[in-house]
């Protein structure tokens, strides 16, 4: 290394040659990562090299569960018996409205109490509706946030606000910020993975976009089936062995090319990226195969029931990913706003809750029993809450409207204080009664739990140091240990 120290541009070429690429590339990534160039946030030649946390934190990885469409809080996590008293009546006047609460036909405004029964669960005595019988058994592991606000009651801006910190597309998503800050632990897999059921109708790929951050931080969509990543598999007729032979010739050519050139670290990084890609081809199929999972585990995630199988697979895959050091896994439920119940709340909501209840609970229990929950932050989110009153005037099966002030989220793992709650909405579950929680506070908290400081995780773009939390959020210490 002496030579490299004297001539930083000479970099690690000798090492590359001696170790014969195929074996050495991964170590090369590590080695380059140790380079000061790579350890600075935003290093472009090795953007995903692991970097230390800025602040000490237990959580190393994050699983972010996103329910698209706006989950109705007063039918799931927020017990509002007061609604019974006003059933079928117009909403009493409420004060403090800064703008329209709902988007559609709020004219009718008839209060609909939750059609679902609530009961207390766990040592924390937490109220939950009957729609989450499984989650109820592990509710003491969760920390709830009530009355989170986003700045729009429209889906697209609210989705962007929740997932990128800004209401218009073009900003970096949470996962991108986290790999930008921390890199990722397994260089053979993407650092930021999206497990979805399709490209969502709202937001599209924009919700896992790198925005203004370097492209390496964009989320990689894993699909179901044998080719989970775009272009992962060799073309028909091409074997791994043949590809290796081609790769050897390519690297021989690249090596000669680099030898004649100064400042070759970017050239070497590109050579190394081919070796990682080559390995990914064998590593990723192993990752998505559940062959080695026991029947008990499959059952835990609900793979034995068609109703829970789809989301169960996503959750199990998420666990396999964090196990292998993927930094951020975003798990999307639905692609066409399934949780957007403007009508038939009583009929549709139980179906959706059933789809996710067992898988999510299975995930939490599985992580816990494997000792991974401490190191893994699990977040449940949606883009907004719903109104206590009806939104659909033409249906006999009522549903609820959008409510940008009523989002409920929960977290588990890391330094979350199990069984805690923060924030409270009024008796109608319409808007915050105490301390409102702007979504940026949730972002600040999430970064803090991952060992990142919102003010130090910045990227200079268009004349500003951009942050996930924009003007800065408050870390919600009430739900932290």
């Amino acid at each position: 290394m002496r030579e490299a120290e004297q001539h930083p541009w000479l970099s690690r070429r000798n090492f590359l040659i001696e170790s014969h690429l195929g074996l050495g590339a991964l170590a090369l990534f590590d080695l380059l990562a140790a380079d000061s160039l790579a350890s600075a946030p935003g290093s472009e030649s090795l953007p995903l090299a692991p970097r230390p946390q800025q602040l000490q934190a237990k959580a190393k990885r994050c699983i972010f569960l996103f329910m698209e469409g706006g989950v109705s809080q007063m039918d799931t996590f927020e017990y509002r018996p007061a609604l019974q008293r006003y059933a079928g009546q117009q909403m009493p006047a409420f004060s403090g409205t800064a703008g329209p609460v709902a988007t559609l036909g709020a004219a009718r405004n008839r209060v609909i109490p939750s059609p679902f029964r609530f009961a207390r669960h766990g040592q924390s005595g937490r109220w939950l509706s009957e729609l989450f019988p499984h989650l109820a058994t592990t509710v003491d592991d969760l920390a709830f946030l009530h009355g989170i606000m986003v700045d729009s009651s429209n889906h697209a801006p609210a989705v962007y606000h929740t997932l990128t910190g800004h209401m218009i597309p073009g900003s970096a998503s949470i996962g991108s910020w986290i790999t930008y800050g921390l890199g990722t632990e397994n260089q053979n897999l993407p650092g930021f993975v999206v497990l979805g059921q399709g490209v969502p109708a709202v937001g599209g790929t924009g919700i896992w976009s790198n925005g203004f951050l370097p492209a390496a931080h964009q989320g990689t969509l894993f699909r179901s089936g044998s080719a989970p990543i775009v272009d992962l598999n060799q073309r028909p007729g091409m074997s791994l062995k043949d590809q290796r032979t081609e790769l050897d010739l390519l690297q021989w050519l690249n090596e000669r090319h680099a030898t004649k050139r100064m400042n070759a670290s970017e050239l070497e990084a590109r050579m190394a990226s081919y070796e990682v890609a080559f390995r990914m081809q064998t590593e990723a199929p192993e990752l998505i195969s559940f062959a080695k999972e026991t029947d008990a585990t499959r059952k835990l995630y609900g793979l034995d029931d068609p109703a829970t199988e789809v989301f169960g697979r996503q959750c199990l895959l998420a666990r396999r990913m964090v196990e292998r050091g993927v930094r951020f896994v975003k798990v999307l439920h639905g692609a066409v706003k399934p949780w957007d119940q403007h009508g038939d709340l009583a009929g549709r909501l139980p179906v959706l809750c059933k789809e996710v209840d067992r898988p999510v609970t299975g995930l939490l229990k599985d992580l816990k029993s494997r000792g991974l929950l401490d190191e893994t932050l699990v977040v449940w989110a949606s883009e907004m809450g719903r109104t206590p009153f009806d939104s659909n005037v033409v249906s006999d099966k009522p549903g609820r409207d959008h409510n940008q002030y009523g989002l409920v989220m929960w977290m588990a793992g890391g330094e979350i204080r199990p069984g805690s709650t923060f924030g409270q909405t009024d008796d109608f579950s319409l808007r915050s009664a105490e301390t409102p929680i702007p979504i940026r506070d949730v972002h600040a908290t999430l970064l803090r739990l991952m060992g990142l400081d919102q003010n130090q995780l910045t990227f200079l773009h268009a004349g500003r140091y951009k942050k996930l939390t924009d003007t800065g959020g408050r870390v919600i210490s009430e739900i932290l240990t």
Partner: protein
Amino acid sequence: MLSRGPRPKQDRRTRFLWCFLAGAIVVPQPLVHAATDASFNQHVQPLLAARCSSCHSAEKKTSGFSIADLESVVSGGNKHGRAVREGQPALSPLVRMIKGEIVPRMPLGGQLSASEISVIEQWIAELSPEQTSSFKAERWLWPFQKPVKHELPRVRSSSWVRNPIDAFVLSKLEEKGISPAPPASNRTLARRVYFDLIGMPPSPEELEAFLEDSSPDAFEKLVNKLLDDPRYGERWARHWLDLVRYGESDGLEGDILLGNAWRYRDWVIDALNSDMPYDRFVTLQLAGGDEHGSKAWYQPDVQGYIPAGFLRLAPWDLGNLASNELRQSYLDEVTTATGSIFLGLSIGCARCHDHKYDPIPTKDYYRLQAFFNAVRIPLPLNTSGISPEEIEVPYKNKVFGKIAEAKVKEYRERLDNGPEKQALDRLEQALLEKLIAAKVAEGSKEALTAGDVRLELSRKNQKVFTLAEKEKHQELTEAFDYTQEPKDKQALDDLEVELTKKLAAAYVQGSEDPLARFQAITVTAVRAEVRGVDRPSKYFSKEEKEQHRKLTEQMEVLRRRLSRWRPLALTVTTVPGPPLGPGVQATHVLKGGDHQQPGEPVEPGFPSAITGNLLPAALEVDRFRQFPTRGRRMTLAKWIASPDNPLTARVMANRIWQHHFGKGIVATPSDFGTNGERPTHPELLDWLAVRFCEENWSIKAMHRLMLTSNTYRQSAENPATAMAADPENRLLWRFDRRRLEAEAIRDSLLCFSGRMNSERGGPSVFPPLPDGMDDLTRASRPGGSMWEPNENDEDARRRSIYIFQRRSLPLPMMASFDAPVFNESCERRSITTTPLQALSMLNGSLVNEEAVFLAARVRKEVGPEKSAQISRLFDIVLNRPPDVEELRRFSQFAGSLDAICRVLLNSNELFYLD
């Protein structure tokens, strides 16, 4: 930037300061001596003196940074400007550098201990702006002062100076004792300039012709030839489209199509190819269609509506938001974009508070915004991409016009009665029959509902209900449709309950056939029943629903194509004034950027940091003052596109430089302000800006000047390395090797295989998505499919600039190679290296398919002999013959010629331009 949360408190003192400064800009204030600061003197200064003085003493002042006193430390160096942000250690370049967040980490070769760093951090955290306020006279004012044509510096090696650029560059190098790199070989130079100007390499024949030209001006001739090549416009338009956040869908819910954005794209390509003077290029984009003209009735030139599409390209939709909020978000975007694209200023930062670093008060932001307040946005498109308010702008190119006309005719006919329409009709008819049969079979098993009443009422000869009942029902239905009021709903419900009873009675009595009403079912009911592919249907199979979806989607695609070929413009217009409309709304300063908190009203005016005053601008008006709402944008455009504007020419000259030399003279090309990087060669940039105006704003003249300099012709390798003195090559002692952009990679591959479809212009095309991806994009959505089939297969191989830019679905291969997300202005692409890129190159369709055609081409050109094939391949892909060693190794390679092609198409030598 559209955040609406609480804002940090406004700093009144700072605002006052800006007002003060705005007047003082032309004459910078003399430096006020630094105040003493106990904490700095006791703890920080000794630390810096011990660790940094070998390079940053008052005498040495490397990179312009000295640790001599508080003022010099706070003021920072040449590259990062002000090194200390009071109270904000994490944002202070000084801290970022000693922590290694900005490279190179300081001190070079060592590092401060954690406790030393924390001493500095704590000092900054406690530092208040009052303590440094006296330094602010040293604010960064260069961007606001008009550039002057500096005298050419004297240099020792004057023989190296081929044109004035070289004198400026060489003088800096000589100052540092650095020698420029030797000239690149003609081969390298040719490849470089081909990629640079037209975005693809020379063919072996083109290269040969250049190498054989021994005339002294051979390179100049080559540059001219390439500037005349229409591929030049296609290459350079891409740089401009990055800046203007070009996209073809709105990026929000449903990602609705924007309209014929492609006409703006073609306008940019044509403007560049015809070397439209940059001042006119700017004027048309800001004010096209806003001029008064001299024609009868003062009709604006409709052709101006095409470039004015610039004002309509950003992501924006009607949504369900309040109108004021929407309009404000539109105005904010346009104001911000105009500031950063044309003026290189982050004016958008002054939306909620006075700019924290540059002399731009919030008031100036809204004064600038007022120029756009007469903008009228024609109603956006519906989901099929059809606008109820169409603006037709005839095609200027008559040949293209004829083609388009034929296409319009074709698609009209197909929509009317083409095979797709017939197939859909047939299917719907069959489904209708099936539905009726099923309903009849079900008979009266189910209880009657209001739906049955409506069905019975819709029959021509129904006998159950009286005319009065029928009319009453219609009246109540219409009333409720209109009001959506609960009481109207109730009235309708009540009537329907009554009518349902009557209907049931009629069936029981046998006065009406209980099955007859089903014959009145129409295709509307069929369409409602098939909606939602995943929703189970009682009447239709999954396959039937899927078939219906496919056919509807085909029709949808035809409708989109029809509207794309029609001569419609995506643009904005001007609100009509009295007596045709109410005139222009007043613009107010908005407190905290919140449209619900209007403050002081403002008139349109130019940034005070440049004009030195806050006076309203003199607006352009027509001779008879007939159109008082017109002319606002024109007034702004003329002020921006003027040689007197200190920023416009500099900013554009810098952008041109950036693309030739890899980075701008100001490395933050859309931010010339305090937070941006300092120019490496300010005198050179000033000289270029003045020259740009003198040459009648000719962009091509700028290309010629830069490309024919010796600075540009340097090799990427310099044996007399200056790596230690200038590791980032800021002083240009060699050519910066660079990775090709996504577009250049794809276009080159298509060019090698000979399969490029070089058609120019027209609606955008849809290269196929990677295998399996289309399923993911098909989710039932209002706009139909996200990705479309092409009109013909060759369209998939058009140049990359013609790829459809759907905001929610960038083409994965392009996105992985850093093609920007098209939502915000992108002034500089990042260049990342990831395994996903490698995967797409190893396994993706592009390399694998084109390699086969490239191999076939080579076989055809040089026959079956392997070494000849290899030599030809090297010539085509790398513009050089293989050396002996390479020829030997490649000849021994057991794989096919396809495999060899794949290897070369993946090589670093192709991806990195020397």
